[in-house]
Structures are given as C-alpha cells and as structure tokens.
C-alpha cells in the first residue's frame, strides 16, 4: 500500500473494500429485500 497523499486537489472520501463486491442483503432498492 502506498502513502496516501491528501491535499486540496486530492482527497479520499470513502475507503473501499478489497473484496470487490457487496455482501449481505443487497437487493434492488425498495424491493423490500
């Protein structure tokens, strides 16, 4: 993992996951799942 630069030109807003795909109960929004 490289050093993460942050300045006014660049900012990480949300750290993602390495798994690459959603898990758990992730169905269509609003379908009730």
């Amino acid at each position, binding site marked *: 993992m490289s050093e993460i630069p942050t300045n006014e030109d*660049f900012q990480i807003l*949300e750290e993602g996951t390495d798994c*690459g*795909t959603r898990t758990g109960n*992730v*169905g*269509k*929004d609003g379908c009730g799942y």
Partner: protein
Amino acid sequence: MFNLFAGDADYLIIRNTFTTTTVRISKNLKEEIDKLLPSINYKYLYNLKDPTTQEKIIRTLLDKNILIDSSIDEKQKYKELFLKHRQEDKVFAIYVTTTTNCQLDCSYCFEGTEKKNKNITKTEADEIVFWVSKYLQQNICNKLRVIFYGGEPLLNMKIIRYLLPKLKKVADDKKIFFETGILTNGELLNYEMGKFLNKYNLDKVQITLDGPKKCHDARRYRKKDKSGTFEKILTNILCILENNFVEKINLRINFDKQNIDFIPELFDLLLSNGIEKRISLSFGMITPTIPSNTKNYFEENTLGQILNAEKYLWLCSEAKKKGFSIPKEFMAGPWCTARKIHSAVILPKGDMLKCISLVGRSEFFFGNIKDCNNLEDKKFTNFEYINTCLEKNCPLVPICGGGCRFEAYLSTGSFSKPHCQKRMLSDINKGLLILNYK
C-alpha cells in the same frame, strides 16, 4: 471500467462501483495525471525513491482500483468474485409468507391474486422447522435469517409466535447465528408484538408510509371500509422506537405521480416527532407489474426512468436538508434472494419461490419443503446476462448485476436476460455522489 464520475467545473468525484472507494480530485490534477499515464511503467512506479505528488496519487489510485494496470482483466476479476461470493455466502435466508391475506387494499399492489386467504398452519409450521433443521444438517451455513412476509404477515401472528422460538432453537442447536426481520404494513405491529420479536434478535423492520396522512390514506386503506391506516401505523412506529425494540425502522415510501409532491410533509412530521435519526428511508418507485387488475394504475401513474431518477434525487435532497441520512448508492439487485444459493420464499402449504415479487403466482413455484432440499432454481442460475453487460463496459455492473430479475421477466419474458436501466441508475448514483460529498 467501474468508475462513475460526477462533479462541477473545478472538481470531479470518482466512485469505483466495484470497491466503493470514492475520491475527490481537481480537474487540473486529473489532467496532469491523464498526461502522465501513457508513459507510466507500473512496476517502476512502485520502486521510485522520491515520487512526485502526481506519481504518489497514481499509486494510490492503483491501490484503490480506480486506475487499473492494463495487464489485469477487470471483467474476468468481477465475474470470478461474483461467483466466489455466491458460493461463499453462508447465510441461510428464509422468507416466511405466513399468509397471503392482507387487510389493506393498496391501489398499486403487485402481488398476484391467487389464493388470497391462505395461511400457514401449525402443522405446516412444524414441517418448516423440520425442513430447516434438515437443510442445515446437509448444508454448511453460519447464520439463519428468518424474515416474515405476506400478504400482511401479522394477520397470522400466532404462527410467528409459534415458529420463532422453534427456529431459534434449531439455530442454537447448530451453534449458528440467528436473526429475524419483518416486512409489514405496520398496522398490527404493536407493543406486544414488538417486544416479542425483539427477543429473537430483530434486525430489520420495514414499514410503509406513502406520505402524510392525506396521501397515505388515499393509497393504503383498509379493505373492509376504505378507512385510512396512517395514524395507527405512526403510533406503532413511535412505540417500537421508543421501546428500542429495533435500532432503526426501514421506512418504505412508494412514490409515483399521485403522491410525490407531498412526501416532504412526511419528513416534517417525522422530524417533529424527533425520530429522523432512527429512520432509514427507502424510496420505492411504482413500476409496472405482471398485467393484472392494477394495470391501469401503473399506466396512469408511473413516472418512467428519467423522471423517477429526478424525483428520487429530489426526495433525497429534501430528506438530507431535514437531517435524515440518505443512501450512498442506489442498487438494482446484485445480491437479492433470487440469486443466493441458500435462500427461499416459503408459502402456505410449503411451496417455494425464489423471488418475493412472485408471491401469489403458482406458475413460478420451484419446489416444496416436503421434497426439496436444493434451493437452486434453474430459472435464476444462468448468469450469462452479466457477461452481456460487462461486454458493453458498463460501469454500473457491480451495483446492478444485470438488473432486477423480476423486472427482467416483465421486460423480456425471461429471468435470464439483462434488464438495463442504465440511464436511471447512472443519473441517481451520480446525483447521490454530489448530494453526499459535495
């Protein structure tokens, strides 16, 4: 390939739909990076002793998969992970349709009209417990998740009271986690029922209010006398939250031409009751269903993809202004019950479906608990449609997965074809980036 871009004249917000990593980058910096990229040697980049700011940022973007080394096949990686996660998902999720009956007569109800008054009996509940136990002996799962569904599940609450302790015991005996949830219109979810469900690790409560009283009562009224249900449901919501029977209530708000403009009045009401932090909003678009007696309703009131996106974002914007949390992304069904291995909707008589939208339509039954231990319904196991979407280099595949299978059936006549709502999904997800991060 999986990047979504939103922004203004000076900045871009980039979200990778695969990893969910989201960054904000100035357009000037992006231009500088774009110029550098063709000459970058990726291996050399990581060995630099004194990298420039741009080079450091390129390394970060590579680490976060927003930039991808050209030697990596992103599509193949996605497909492999999709199938791997499907295999490794060890949650056994059952949707127990305690009854197909409902006390309401909602104008847009999507459920089929067959056997509207069928209830799960005590004998059938015992058969469900036996079947669940047997399934867990034959399949390695780490959690049993029981969601009550209907019709209106609480019209048969004696079966919920009978079934839950027995299913919890099955999970305890197997030493696996247990949780429960309920999708209800909320009219019968009183203190006693809330207290009972709370004993069984109540994880999700979804209740529907279609706007303030005047809107809700015009759409979701009682069958027997057309009287409204709003006040009773709101009282129950407040009771459930006040007694901490669940941390948050998932409030479903269905919208279409009829009620869209009035929904912010409901936000004000929830705010005045001080529960805005304990509500997860879920806006449901009223879209066509299998042709039935409600067909005219959809034709007259559905907004269509472009307006649905616009109105969805407007609702999110209004909700955010009033202090509600809003979603970070809008999904279209990568991991619904229809695509999981260990999941089924169980109906009275033990019949099984793979998708909750198919309740009330016996032609889609794929088995019965009396003789079925394989929950793979072949209608839903051909994932070739995802390849079709990947071939089009669609950045939305990780949040769409080829689209809702029920809607695919409606639009193509097949559960195995893509259902593309790219315009709407793209508009909504870009809009959510701006609303959440600008």
